[in-house]
């Protein structure tokens, strides 16, 4: 069953066409990787899905509902959450507070001047669950800005998860990380995908991570969809090798 459907999506900045007529269907529970050389339009594509930019043309559907015109908030309300290439967290707050903010938003409390005991207990439970899932329990009271890069990334992912999304968008989750941290983050994503049947779309440069995690891979090149298929099909595709794997790695 198709969960995220994208039809003929296009984005133009002045005379530059960053994304050109890209269509894609992601099944429920699938982990889809989007790869491509720098400047291929991956992040622009992501920004349109998450509502950061309005597309110049094309349609986006989530779970059968059109979302092309929805605001960021509207999309979050329908179960979409994302992370950014440069980790976006609340640096001067503790891990627990970062997750508390997300949990309170998720439970519709963000405008409340006070909360009752029951609601507070639900928030606490959600925080504990998110920390456990992301392996952050021991770091609960540390300031996020003081954590290592990999842990900050884990906090960002956990924050997104606290929204209880149905679709998770990850923009280069292992960017700028060392061997150990890359492994940690990849393992976290794999666990989420496997244990929670979450639909995930991720942009990634590290091919080991991509081939390890993805059910299917889409290759963008110069704003167009160059190829799509299972990791094996992509690895064997001569056009992909020419355009990307050959010269990039």
């Amino acid at each position, binding site marked *: 069953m198709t969960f995220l459907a994208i039809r003929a999506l296009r984005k133009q900045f002045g005379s530059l066409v960053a994304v050109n007529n890209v269509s894609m269907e992601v099944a429920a529970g699938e982990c889809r990787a989007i790869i491509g050389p720098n400047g291929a339009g991956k992040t622009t594509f992501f920004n349109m899905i*998450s509502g950061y930019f309005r597309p110049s043309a094309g349609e986006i559907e989530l779970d059968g509902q059109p979302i092309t015109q929805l605001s960021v908030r509207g999309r979050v309300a329908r179960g979409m959450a994302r992370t950014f290439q440069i980790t976006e967290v*609340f640096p001067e707050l503790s891990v627990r507070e970062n997750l508390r903010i997300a949990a309170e938003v998720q439970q519709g409390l963000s405008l*409340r001047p006070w909360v009752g005991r029951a609601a507070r207990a639900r928030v606490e439970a959600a925080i504990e669950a998110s920390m456990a899932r992301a392996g952050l329990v021991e770091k609960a009271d540390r300031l996020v800005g003081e954590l290592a890069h990999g842990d900050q990334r884990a906090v960002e992912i956990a924050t997104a998860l606290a*929204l209880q999304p149905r679709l998770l968008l990850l923009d280069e989750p292992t960017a700028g990380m060392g061997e150990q941290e890359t492994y940690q983050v990849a393992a976290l994503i794999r666990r989420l995908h496997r244990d929670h049947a979450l639909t995930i779309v991720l942009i990634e440069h590290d091919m080991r991570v991509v081939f390890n995690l993805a059910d299917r891979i889409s290759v963008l090149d110069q704003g167009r969809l160059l190829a799509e298929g299972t990791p094996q099909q992509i690895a064997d595709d001569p056009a992909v090798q020419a355009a990307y794997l050959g010269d990039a790695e």
Partner: protein
Amino acid sequence: MAPAARMRLLKLAVIWVVLLTAPYWSAPIGGYPALCSRVVILGMAAMAFNLLLGFTGIMSFGHAAFFGLGAYGAGLALKFATSSTILAIIAGVLLGTIAGALLGALVVRRRGVYFAMVTIAFGQIFYFIAFRWNTLTGGDDGLRGFARQPVGIGRWLLDIQHNDILFYDFVLVVLAVVAGLMGLLLQSPFGRTLLAIRENERRARFLGIAVDLHIWLAFVASCLFVACAGALYACLNNFADPTLFNYNMSGTIVIMAVLGGFRAFWGPMLGAAVFVVMQDYLSSMMQNWMWAVGLIFMAVVLFFPRGILGVLRRRASA
């Protein structure tokens, strides 16, 4: 009780003991009740302003407008409508809050320097209104001919009109209410959402937070409390004049918050104490003292950007 919570309670106790006894311990070093009242009222304004700067990460440079509206609202009410100081203060608060809600709606989508600039410019409107609308506001000469009235509580009548120390205590009661409300607000989910916006607006937006709505609400709350301080200020002086609306007043509110430490809840109150006392001293020493105030501004920016409490905290953690 957890050690952190006990520590907080202890700090709060110290702050209130210092505040309650201020007219007595400050007398030998040149303090007097009206000066204490001025410190607390301006400190209240700076704390209210700091809801935005320190806890939402938004820089409003036009808070004099709402301070002034509070003052004129209370003054006009006392002059024409009521003999109740408390009703007059409520009138001032309403005037400032309504104006804040309207102007806030116009500026709320702007950020950073743009937000600062638009709020500076809008603040000036009220300066001109107060300046030009002679018949109502007394124009350049200011609003006169009103006086704060004694406050009755049950069988007692507190003569805050003639007893300056009683008035100071009255100001402290209002401060307790205002600070209590602001503290509750900041510890609520709403307050945490404001912190999220301060820390990382983009992340907040992609958590699905209605950022503009939250900033607007914070702006309105901040205007409400600033207007309350302004209303008290009119009661303190039995006078209000257009300079209250001037951008110099806005700058003073900002510098008090920064000087004390805008990341701390009580920092602006400390900043107000230091600033007001220095200003009082300077103006008694020389005729032209604005340059010295200017030096204070520059010194704070260049040497204490995180304020007095910021420096102390760094010392403590180092």
